[in-house]
């Protein structure tokens, strides 16, 4: 065994192994970083650099009073925010409006800026844009918000929704009932989960903040007008504060539902409601999807080329003979080279996946469970071993370096690139009706002919897909072990007994 261990150690500490491991790690981290950051919104400013302006307009003697409250993505007040706004009236159609006054100002240290507009008109509309200097970057809050004020006493705001300035979709259907209440989901400074809501009572100037009872629940839909607190869970009572951030407790039942926060007066009448869709971040899914495309290429290439450089090239060129004449057997030389490849795959993959997990954790706040981590790791590990074993096997029959690498590349295209499509098309060619329950197992079985299917099968299993078509832990283990063991053992037996 000393000869085996010696060659194993020497191969593992060789330049090629180190380069291969470093390359795989760097590529994986790079791909994870690019994929995660690209998947973020193009203007993914941190919440601290996002501004929302919450306008309030109400009639006063001789005109209107307008108070804008600016908050960032955490719901914290934004001081020194330039707000450019105007009051206008419609001239019969929404496309024709007359600007009545332009109002420009900057928020104070508490995030407020106020304007007065003197008029005897009974209806005005208000619109604004806000510019916020965040460090050296000017952040433009694009949350234009048209308001409509009527009846001279109570203002009603009409809006289809309140939108994130980063264009990420509606974050809340806000309701500014006559109580002038905003309920807006905001980011948490301590958690990636959407647990925080800003409750801002605008209210007419000098109006005392009423007692507000906050409730929450998780639902598949939202209906503001019909909502009562009868089917909601009490969270807390707010008294005497204009702006408060509440944190909603989340549990697994909230997954894939709307998190609703309702604010009710002391007599339980609805004052306002906000909501945010919530889905638990499945980092296993994120990572498998993130790795699927690049690893579809990288892992087979890793297996093929490591086998070629560790063994096939030396065997075909005759270099291996200069080693075989030493005190070492052919079998042990094969085993040391193959084991070195296997160990380097494992090291490269475990470090790569660890770093990818960290990258995903950084951006999503969710890390892989150890079970998911090792199932993903082992599925790619088995794939790399399988491709490596195939090349070792080919090397027992093919004596030319060029032919070996040519066959390797051919197999890469066949098994790694096209086999998935072939396995899907073959049943059509054979006129198999895949709509019949269980018929898809043919596709699964055909797909299993390629080692590249092992990670895909693992993904199916993790997501509970095709479980009725043969995807199970048992079948995954069977396919993985067959691919990892059979080519390797076959080539080992041939290597120790053939010239």
């Amino acid at each position, binding site marked *: 065994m000393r000869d085996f261990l010696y060659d194993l150690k020497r191969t593992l500490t060789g330049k090629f192994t180190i380069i291969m491991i470093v390359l795989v790690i760097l590529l994986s981290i790079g791909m994870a970083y690019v994929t995660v950051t690209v998947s973020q919104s193009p203007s993914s400013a941190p919440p601290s650099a996002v501004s929302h302006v919450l306008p309030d307009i109400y009639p006063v003697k001789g005109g209107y009073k307008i108070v804008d409250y600016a908050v960032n993505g955490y719901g914290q007040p934004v001081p020194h925010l330039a707000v450019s706004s105007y009051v206008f009236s419609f001239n019969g159609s929404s496309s024709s409006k007359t600007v009545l006054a332009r109002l420009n100002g900057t928020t104070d240290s508490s995030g407020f800026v106020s304007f007065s507009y003197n008029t005897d008109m009974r209806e005005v509309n208000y619109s604004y844009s806000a510019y916020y200097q965040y460090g050296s970057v000017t952040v433009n809050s694009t949350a234009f918000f048209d308001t409509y004020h009527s009846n001279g006493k109570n203002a009603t705001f009409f809006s289809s929704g309140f939108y994130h300035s980063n264009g990420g979709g509606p974050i809340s259907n806000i309701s500014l009932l006559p109580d002038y209440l905003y309920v807006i989901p905001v980011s948490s400074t301590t958690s990636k989960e959407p647990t925080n809501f800003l409750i801002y009572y605008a209210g007419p100037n000098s109006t005392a903040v009423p007692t507000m009872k906050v409730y929450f629940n998780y639902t598949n839909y939202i209906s503001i007008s019909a909502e009562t607190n009868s089917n909601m869970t009490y969270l807390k009572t707010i008294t005497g504060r204009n702006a408060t951030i509440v944190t909603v407790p989340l549990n697994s039942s909230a997954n894939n539902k709307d998190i609703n926060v309702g604010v009710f007066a002391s007599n339980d009448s609805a004052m306002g409601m906000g909501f945010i869709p919530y889905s638990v971040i499945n980092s296993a899914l994120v990572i498998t999807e993130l790795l699927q495309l690049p690893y579809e290429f990288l892992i087979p290439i890793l297996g093929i080329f490591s086998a070629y450089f560790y063994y096939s090239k030396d065997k075909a060129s005759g270099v291996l003979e200069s080693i075989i004449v030493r005190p070492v057997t052919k079998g042990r030389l094969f085993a040391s080279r193959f084991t070195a490849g296997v160990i380097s795959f494992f090291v490269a993959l475990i470090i790569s996946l660890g770093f990818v997990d960290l990258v995903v954790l950084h951006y999503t706040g969710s890390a892989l469970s150890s079970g998911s981590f090792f199932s993903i790791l082992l599925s790619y590990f088995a794939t790399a071993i399988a491709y490596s074993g195939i090349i070792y096997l080919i090397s027992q029959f093919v004596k030319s370096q060029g032919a070996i690498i040519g066959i390797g590349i051919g197999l890469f295209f066949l098994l790694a690139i096209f086999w998935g499509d072939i396995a899907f098309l073959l049943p059509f060619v054979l006129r198999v009706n895949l709509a019949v329950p269980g018929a898809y197992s043919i596709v699964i079985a055909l797909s299993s002919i390629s080692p590249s299917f092992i990670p895909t099968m693992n993904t199916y299993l993790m997501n509970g897909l095709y479980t009725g078509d043969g995807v199970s832990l048992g079948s995954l283990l069977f396919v993985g072990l067959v691919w990892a063991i059979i080519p390797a053992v076959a080539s080992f037996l041939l290597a120790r007994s*053939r010239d």
Partner: protein
Amino acid sequence: MIQISSLTKSYKKNQPSAVKNLSLDIDDSEIVGFAGLNGAGKTTTIRVACGIIFPSSGRVSIDGKDIVKEKVQASKNIGWVPELPNFEPNGRAVPLLKYYAGFYGISSSDAESRAEELLKKFSIWDSRKKKLKDYSQGMKKRFAIAAAMMGDPKNFLFDETLNGLDPEGVRDMRNLMVNLRNDGKAVFLSSHILSELENVADRIAIISRGELIKVIERSELSNLGSSFIEINVQNPDDKVESMLEPYGKVERSGNIYYIRNLKINANEGYKINQTLVSSKYNVISMSVKYEGLEDYFLNLVGAGK
């Protein structure tokens, strides 16, 4: 000591065996030359003896260890120098020799000093930083010898090692083999250059079409094959040839007559001399000669037939 017993090697079922039932011992302190035409089975025999390929049947043992069943123990005492050394092309001399040394259990520091000693001995120390692919064929061959000696084996197998060497290289190789023999090593040397085998070998094994057909002892080299008589006659005329015909087949080249296929014993050449002298011819010289190794070899293996 290398013992080859009833060795047969077939590459393909439907083709003749490359080596058939070959038995040969190479003793310690002995150089055995291995002669044969191309494709005779020399390299196959050596590759089996080194454990590179497996025998179809028969056995090769190195110092009593079977090269197949006890490969690791047997290989510790084998030094193989191929005709065309093939090493890791991007490798460098010292690290590669140290790598090989590791298989023999030589420590890294001992391997380093041993590598330096051998590379200096074979005049490639100055090229140690070059990649092996940049070595000339002669340098590669010298490196191969250094690599073969790295584990200080007791048995050496040289496969056409003299091919492609310049005269100085041939001389150095000859001296190396003699020194190895003098150090008690067994040396098995295959070569096309029969004169070199004659120069260094204690025995010469001749192989033809995979079969060992003759082993010639060194003492036999001087009187190989059939004898003939060479006579130098002063001012010969046409009668001389007819006078010599009763003694064998006569060939004439100027004043020199060669009598082959002698009908008398070689030591009875004085009778020819008496015949010529009695007929008043002046015999300047007469000697009994034997075929050279090359003629003997070619006759033996039936080359060209």
